[in-house]
């Protein structure tokens, strides 16, 4: 089963990469960008048939390694 995870910086955490990307896009004449925040995307192929169990495991992975909860939020994208 494939499960996706999206990790993003919390709102009040500075994101210099996002700011630099925004500036570069503006330099390429992409106007009207209000803001850009960079995040991370994980695609996890897990050997588990039970959707609920798989989600629980992925949640645990996020809390223990994939996200640092001091600065990041994560979202588990439900399996199809």
């Amino acid at each position: 089963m494939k499960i996706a995870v999206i990790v993003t910086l919390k709102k009040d955490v500075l994101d210099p990469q996002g700011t630099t990307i925004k500036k570069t896009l503006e330099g390429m004449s992409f106007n009207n960008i209000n803001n850009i925040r960079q995040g991370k995307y994980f695609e996890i192929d897990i050997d588990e048939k039970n959707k609920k169990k798989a989600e629980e495991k992925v949640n645990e992975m996020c809390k223990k390694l994939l996200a640092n909860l001091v600065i990041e939020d994560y979202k588990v994208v439900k399996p199809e």
Partner: protein
Amino acid sequence: MNSSVIVFPGSNCDRDIAIALRKFGFKNKMIWHEDVELPKSDLVVLPGGFSYGDYLRCGSMASKSKIIQSVIKFANSGGLLMGICNGFQILTETSLLPGVLLRNKFSKFICKNVFVKINNIENNYFKNIKKNVLNLHIAHNEGNYFCSGEQMKEMQENNQIALLYCDEKGEVNEKYNPNGSSKNIAGIFSRKKNILGMMPHPERMIEKYLSGEDGSLFFENLLNNLK
């Protein structure tokens, strides 16, 4: 005095710190990250570098390595544990120290000498040190210290702030902050002050004619405090 330097794949200041420790009288051992047991140590150091290529987040992979459980046990029983640069990042990722080191505010890798003010001398690292402002070297891309308001309040109440970026006279001001760190923080202690995480590299300041001697002051003093 016995010291142990933990070596991760991608550590690159491990030999520098080992040279510094030996120069000032420590009997040092290099410990590979896949080892399980720490040898008997009076000081354990997590060195600078790019452990695991800084994958995911700086220090995050190293914080789950095999040796870390022994390091955590050592620190929790009061052992002296010091993390320099990437070592500091590893300490925050293991939650032995609060907060996190974010990417530098102005998106630049910073490599230069800075002045840091010692904010608390009631600990084995800085007790009796002859200066209160040290000239040390920094070299990092993620040294922007950040923590929650609650964590900051707790650190201030427990006097856990160890080093602050300042000018040569010790004036702490935002204009001397190289990387955007909250409150100009360059290093912090654990609650019990046995764990020290710092971005500056004292091991790069141990040769009078090459760099400077404020690192020598730090190591000599540390050894004297442990005797």
